[in-house]
């Protein structure tokens, strides 16, 4: 057993590392982390355009549509380097969520119309799945699309829609047939956000930011050409997408970097004259996390190695999302604990210097926003149901 990469793969790693070091400079990092609202969109789009110019924006896509043509190993290396460098992932809704559905199930016209603008980040997408009455039980959704002439008339409400306020397009699961098994009457529809009858209402969240929204559809007219594949087959397409989404959810490299930061912060934070990193109780909490992360790193490598060898990921792949999110939450939690009193401060315009602390605001926000990680993408309870059934045969 070994975790060695080939010489060519190491060369590739160096190339990726060098590109990130020169292009993702402190200016990009600052504009991304300080960005609020439209500033954030501007900053992330600028970064994604850099990646696009380099040809690295869509490693997961087939080469013919603009993918990189990288091997499994190269994709893995790229992701690891990105996480280690502290670079945020691309906004997934267009590039990682709707695009695979379009290039797999869409028509030639749809591919030509949508894919290039997703690659270039000229179109911003959001995901219209969850509804007030359809969360984990997604197939219970009730937003309707009634076929009339050459259009669908869409009525209903989508909720928890991340970045709908920035979006040009939304991909939706809508009900097109009733009186069939609930999974069977669902269609996959692409909707222009400027369509009359579509409106967005912000949902402020506990981290004090605006990322979530409610999207309302009131007699919104959507042309039939925006239907993906066949009517009533949307559930099948969405499920294929979920499988695509599941790989690479452990975010080990990101967690490793957060843990390294946390350790440095714990060395600087002092209690009774003693650095927190030397506190025996704090050390136990830290190593509880670090040892789990060391295990998860190898679980991810095991999954990757079997895929690189051309096989299917083994049953261990199913735990990546659960463990990955539990570990990142545990890091957020310990970081907030480290910030102590300052963690409660709503800093506003106050500088770190004036507040008297340099990471408290980030600690609070990432703890609060981080709670979502075990809810989205299939809650961790649903993930456990899936493993119980698919892996343990219960």
């Amino acid at each position, binding site marked *: 057993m070994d975790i060695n990469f080939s010489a060519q793969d190491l060369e590739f790693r160096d190339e990726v590392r060098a590109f990130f070091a020169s292009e993702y400079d402190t200016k990009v990092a600052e504009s991304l982390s300080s960005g609020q609202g439209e500033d954030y969109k501007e900053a992330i789009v600028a970064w994604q355009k850099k990646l696009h110019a380099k040809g690295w924006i869509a490693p997961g896509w087939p080469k013919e549509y603009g993918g990189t043509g990288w091997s499994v190993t190269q994709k893995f290396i790229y992701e690891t380097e990105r996480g280690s460098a502290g670079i945020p992932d691309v906004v997934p809704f267009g590039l990682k969520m709707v695009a695979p559905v379009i290039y797999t199930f869409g028509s030639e016209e749809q591919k030509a119309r949508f894919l290039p603008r997703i690659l270039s980040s000229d179109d911003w997408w959001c995901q219209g799945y969850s509804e007030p009455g359809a969360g984990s039980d997604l197939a219970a959704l009730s937003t309707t699309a009634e076929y009339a002439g050459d259009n669908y008339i869409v009525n209903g409400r989508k909720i928890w829609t991340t970045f709908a306020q920035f979006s040009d397009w939304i991909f939706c699961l809508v009900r097109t047939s009733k009186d069939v098994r609930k999974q069977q009457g669902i269609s996959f529809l692409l909707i222009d956000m400027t369509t009359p009858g579509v409106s967005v209402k912000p949902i402020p969240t506990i981290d004090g930011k605006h990322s979530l929204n409610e999207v309302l559809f009131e007699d919104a007219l959507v042309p039939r050409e925006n239907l993906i594949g066949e009517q009533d087959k949307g559930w099948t397409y969405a499920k294929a997408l979920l499988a695509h989404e599941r790989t690479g959810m452990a975010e080990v490299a990101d967690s490793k970097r957060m843990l390294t930061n946390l*350790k440095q912060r714990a060395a600087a934070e002092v209690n009774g004259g003693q650095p927190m990193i030397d506190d025996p109780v704090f050390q136990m909490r830290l190593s509880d996390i670090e040892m789990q992360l060391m295990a998860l790193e190898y679980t991810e490598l095991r999954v990757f190695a079997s895929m690189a060898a051309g096989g299917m990921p083994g049953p261990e792949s199913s735990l990546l999302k659960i463990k990955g999110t539990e570990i990142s939450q545990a890091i957020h939690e310990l970081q907030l604990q480290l910030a102590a009193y300052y963690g409660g401060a709503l800093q506003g315009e106050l500088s770190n210097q004036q507040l008297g602390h340099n990471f408290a605001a980030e600690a609070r926000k990432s703890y609060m926003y981080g709670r979502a990680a075990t809810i989205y993408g299939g809650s961790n309870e649903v993930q456990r*149901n899936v493993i119980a059934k698919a892996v343990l045969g219960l």
Partner: protein
Amino acid sequence: MNFDFSEEQVMIKDSVARFVRDEYDFDTRRNIIHSEEGISRDFWSMFAELGWLSVPFAEEYGGFGGSVEDLVAVMEELGKGIVVEPYVSTVVIFGGLLSAASNEDLKSAYIPKIIEGSCLGSFAFLERQSRFEMADVATNAIVCDAGYKINGEKTVVINAGTADSLIVSARTSGEQFDRDGVSLFMVDATTAGVSINSYKTMDGQSAATISFKDVVVPASHLLGAVGQGMEIVDKVMPQILLALSAEALGIMATLNALTVDYTKTRQQFGTPISSFQALQHRMVDTFMACEQTKSLLYRGLCDANKIVVDPSVDASELQKSVHALKATVAKYGKLIGEEAIQIHGGIGMTDELNVGHFVKRLMTINVAFGDADFHQKKFNQLSYSTISVQAS
């Protein structure tokens, strides 16, 4: 990158698995435990014939020349049968210390005997006061005309009752806790002044309190340089911890499988209890615990292999990995054992069912050479002590 066992390793793994499946069922094991010696000499001879006793030893002593990875392959399967024959004591620990020692005469005298099955060995290191600190040695060895005279007492010496020879840690210089000054001696169990009081342990094996009264051993029975015994122990410890963890992994996987199967057949409220979500989620957690343990075991193996390829590699990565592994084995072993009993319900409490016996072996592995807290503290020292130095 590769996480597969080699063809050769798969072969030996399969052969151990076949033995456990076909010849070492639960009743056979029970009869062995209740026999006079508590082990099967016939099976031990068979292990020798099949070459299992030669796995980690160098070819120059008649060994298979295997790596720690080969050893792990064997141990995982032995764990699935909770095999009570003293493979860990004799091959992994006693043999491991010998292999790491520098005394060539001792090595060529003893290793071939281990391989042919005619020498069982134990490592006598623990004392009443020493808990997990192996350098806390009060037993002393004083120079005399014939070599050294050993006086003192060792406790919980695993499998000493059947051992032909003992490796004994004794202080030749320094104070009680000093690492320098601990020496390792080869002492035959029948040497005058050695008295062995054996008792059974809950995992179906045995241990003993041994007193050493003016036990004379020749200087040629020193395993290495005088006073440098801890170096040998440190050198072989990662291998011991990896092997024990592999055994534990085999047990964990078996307990999980037994529990999942049981819930599919046990009916309550008119339905198999496997349909209850409260139980499903607990079994998913124990499944994940087992996979994460396997990942840490493989991490340890990769680190160990790296050092074999390039001895100049920083050994602290391997040390961190095995401390994390052993701590995790203890924590998750406890979780998996307790959940197995709980989910089996009343039947899980019975001596008749195999589950409790798997759990008891896990429990003894969990304290062997340090429990979860001990290894986590060691991990913390290695990982975090340097950070504050850098910051200050």
